[in-house]
């Protein structure tokens, strides 16, 4: 096992750790910083307990150990990073005092309104990148010290980080960029949020109003670009409109079915003086007659729903993202328990029910568990809550759930009947609908479901035993992804926020890590955005600093947003990166193997020496190439204060099974293929 070591602290600055100094950190003047994990030394063998055995104040580490995750502790570069970080966090009290003075001496301008509006929403972090026309905002950011700005390395990372912050906290995520290229860079992240219903406000600067439409430098019609991929968007040319527009933007983003809202502000509006007051939520709602989401389900539909449930012999509940968004986890569990109906979940519904619950049946769809899809295909009733029958869930709609009547609960009426015809539509907020349903639902006699549940249990046993996948076992000579994910889940007590990238790693993360807590699994479900994991984990870690955050990447996706490693270091964001490196675009290779007769074009992927890469960034990193090395490396990475990295060299040709071929149905799962690694 190879590794680089970090000493965890940026230098001997007393309290310099942005309030993150872990217990047992050396006292000021100790000079060494604490070791992150006492990582096993090279050749030290597997199974060595990766626990720091050095007492505080022990002898200085050797020069080789001195490598910090902030570049060369004590070096000019490190000082510069530390200074920039402190400025950004407004740690120095003189900065704060100056800010207050400065703010009082000058008039309130549009840029101040933006900062105030964000703070009024209870959002304390925003992710951005400065540029020409947004500079008036950066000029006043320092005057609003409660607002933490994280300087990302690419605007796409900023949008994903805002997305991660929103998914992890339920608050609205905010990202920021200038006009033109910055705005177009945000687009991928905005589209990701749109397809997964994530509350986000994206703010961009635009050229001064008089230059709009003149093809000015860095001018592009960005509201025209974001129009079809946002819940709503605005172009603001007058600072007096800003309080209303921003309040509306946040209100629209988080109300009803959440989604991203884009606010484009001209440079002159940012600079214009204004006294316009911020409206209240009630005033905002009154000003939006065209936006009245239905929250309460229609009583008649809910009664029909109860009747369907009472009649069904082989029912199954689907939990989607809507359960998590509506915070309906308790109601969902109570519904399952009172009716003795097993619960399956979609990719974004993971965490809606503790996976160890006796009625938790599993993940459905294209790469879902065979027993779950089998239960769907034989069900006589589907109670779908807050999901949208995506093609990755249904496969061919004609052969989908042929015996089932469908009750569909969703807050967005447009989702009902969009992809599959349903028997009982219920429009409303999942929590309110389920609460109303529970009030009229009798307790089901548990004995009525005994045979059904026994059969499902038998199917589950078959499905788990039918393949070495998912057994959690390792195979001699191979390091498999499912084993790695199970170990991460185990080490983190299934309480970490797991952020998946896209591709095979995403499906392994969904299937094998094991989830007990809502909002502990973040994944780009709708758009399938490669490069998602690291920047999203950045936002999630800042939103939920009380939880460990893991970004699980393939070597393809990781290299798409690799630049954000620098952000992790500069802002010391404690993200653990698990790189599942098969030196392939794994899901592409899998499709080429199974559906394109092994024509492996452009699926081999060169990657750098990731340990050296991490060393260059100053991130403590470990490498595991055999099953014995996995757990110690995870534990070592978990113990680091700040970002850390584990490079898992997994079997190069492991596939995700089962897989449903595109255009086929849930009954046509492929469970094995002849390859060496299967």
């Amino acid at each position, binding site marked *: 096992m190879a590794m680089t070591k970090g000493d965890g602290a940026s230098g001997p600055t007393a309290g310099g750790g942005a309030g993150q100094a872990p217990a047992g950190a050396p006292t000021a003047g100790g000079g060494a910083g604490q070791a992150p994990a006492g990582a096993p030394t090279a050749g030290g063998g597997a199974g060595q307990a990766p626990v720091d055995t050095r007492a505080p104040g022990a002898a200085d580490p050797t020069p080789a150990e001195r490598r910090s995750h902030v570049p060369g502790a004590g070096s000019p570069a490190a000082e510069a990073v530390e200074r920039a970080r402190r400025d950004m966090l407004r740690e120095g009290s003189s900065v704060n005092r100056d800010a207050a003075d400065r703010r009082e001496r000058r008039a309130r301008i549009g840029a101040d309104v933006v900062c105030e509006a964000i703070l009024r929403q209870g959002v304390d972090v925003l992710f951005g990148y400065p540029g020409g026309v947004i500079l008036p905002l950066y000029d006043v950011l320092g005057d609003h010290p409660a607002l933490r700005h994280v300087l990302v390395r690419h605007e796409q990372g900023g949008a994903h980080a805002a997305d991660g912050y929103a998914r992890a906290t339920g608050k609205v995520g905010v990202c920021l960029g200038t006009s033109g290229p910055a705005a177009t860079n945000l687009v991928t992240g905005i589209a990701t949020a749109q397809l997964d219903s994530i509350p986000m406000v994206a703010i961009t600067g635009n050229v001064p109003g008089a230059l709009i439409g003149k093809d000015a430098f860095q001018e592009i019609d960005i*509201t*025209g670009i974001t*129009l*079809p991929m946002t*819940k*709503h968007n605005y172009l603001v040319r007058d600072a007096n409109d800003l309080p209303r527009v921003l309040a509306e933007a946040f209100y*629209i983003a988080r109300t009803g079915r959440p989604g991203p809202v884009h606010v484009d502000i001209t440079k002159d509006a940012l600079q214009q003086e204004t006294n316009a007051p911020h409206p209240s939520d009630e005033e905002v709602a009154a000003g*939006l*007659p*065209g*936006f*009245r989401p239905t929250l309460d389900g229609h009583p008649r539909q809910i009664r029909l729903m109860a009747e369907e449930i009472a*009649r*069904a*012999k*082989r029912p199954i509940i689907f939990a989607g993202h809507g359960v998590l968004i509506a915070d309906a986890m308790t109601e969902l569990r109570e519904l399952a328990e009172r009716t003795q109906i097993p619960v399956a979940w979609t990719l974004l519904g993971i965490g809606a029910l503790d996976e160890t619950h006796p009625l938790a049946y599993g993940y459905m769809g294209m790469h879902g568990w065979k027993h779950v899809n*089998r239960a769907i*295909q*034989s069900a*006589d009733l589907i109670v779908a809550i807050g999901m949208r029958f995506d093609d990755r869930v249904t496969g061919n*709609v*004609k*052969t*989908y*759930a*042929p*015996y*089932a*009547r469908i009750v569909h609960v969703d807050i*967005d*009426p*447009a989702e009902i*009947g*969009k*992809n*599959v*015809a349903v*028997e009982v539509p219920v429009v409303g907020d999942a929590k309110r609908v389920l609460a109303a349903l529970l009030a009229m639902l009798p307790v089901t006699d548990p004995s009525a479901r005994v045979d059904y549940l026994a*059969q499902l249990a038998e199917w589950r046993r078959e499905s788990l035993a039918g393949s070495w996948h998912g057994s959690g076992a390792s195979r001699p000579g191979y390091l498999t992804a499912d084993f790695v994910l199970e170990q991460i889940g185990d080490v983190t007590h299934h309480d970490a926020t797991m952020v998946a990238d896209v591709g095979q790693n995403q499906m392994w993360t969904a299937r094998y890590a094991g989830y007990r807590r809502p909002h502990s699994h973040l994944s780009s479900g709708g758009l399938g955005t490669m490069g998602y994991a690291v920047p999203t984990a950045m936002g999630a870690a800042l939103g939920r600093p009380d939880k460990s955050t893991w970004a699980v990447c393939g070597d393809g996706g990781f290299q798409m947003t690799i630049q954000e490693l620098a952000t992790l270091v500069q802002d010391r964001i404690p993200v653990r990166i698990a790189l599942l490196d098969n030196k392939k675009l794994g899901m592409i290779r899998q499709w080429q193997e199974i559906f394109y007769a092994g024509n492996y074009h452009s699926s081999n992927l060169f990657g750098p020496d990731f340990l050296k890469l991490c060393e260059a960034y100053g991130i403590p990193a470990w490498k595991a190439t055999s099953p014995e090395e996995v757990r110690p490396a995870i534990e070592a990475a978990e113990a680091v204060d700040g970002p850390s990295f584990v490079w898992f060299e997994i079997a190069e040709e492991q596939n995700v099974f089962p897989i449903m071929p595109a255009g086929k149905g849930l*009954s046509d799962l492929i469970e094995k293929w002849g390859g060496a690694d299967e």
Partner: protein
Amino acid sequence: MSDTHQPAAHAAPPPRTIPGTGTQRRHVLVAIVNNRPGVLNRVASLMRARNFNIESLAVSHVDDPEVSRMTITLHGDDVNVEQATKQLYKLIDVMKVQDVTDDPTVQHELVLVKVRATDRNRGELISIVEMYKARIVDMAPDSVIVETTGTETEVDALIALLRGYGIKELVRTGTVVMSRGPQSIEEATKR
């Protein structure tokens, strides 16, 4: 799966229908929208992105200066058009959408046709125009402009007759529609 499937307690539904595969017909939607810049773009962009084909679209102010009214005609099956109305409804600037296809309505459009006219056939042309309760609104040495209002079918019939004389130019406003009887979509609009 059939080996393990147990008969349902009640009748299984017919084979799962796929939304959008039903009988296609012409639908007329009325939308009440905010009278703001860009709203037409939002509506048009949505219809394009969701693959709904607009046949005609008429937009105008109404009595309330804050709102505009759109009449959208499109082809599709009932489920698909219902999906279009739901998607339209999701736009923040759209306050009310109603499919009035099956309601008793007055549906009219206005058309202007510039037709070739010579001294020899001008009289004949004028009598056709009078018969169709249309009128001549402009006359030049070798052409006339005919104006008419009516349902799409009535307008089509007149145009078919005029085509024989040679149509130089033609413009149709697209259908505008209003429900018969006392009810008012504008009064019913959430505000």
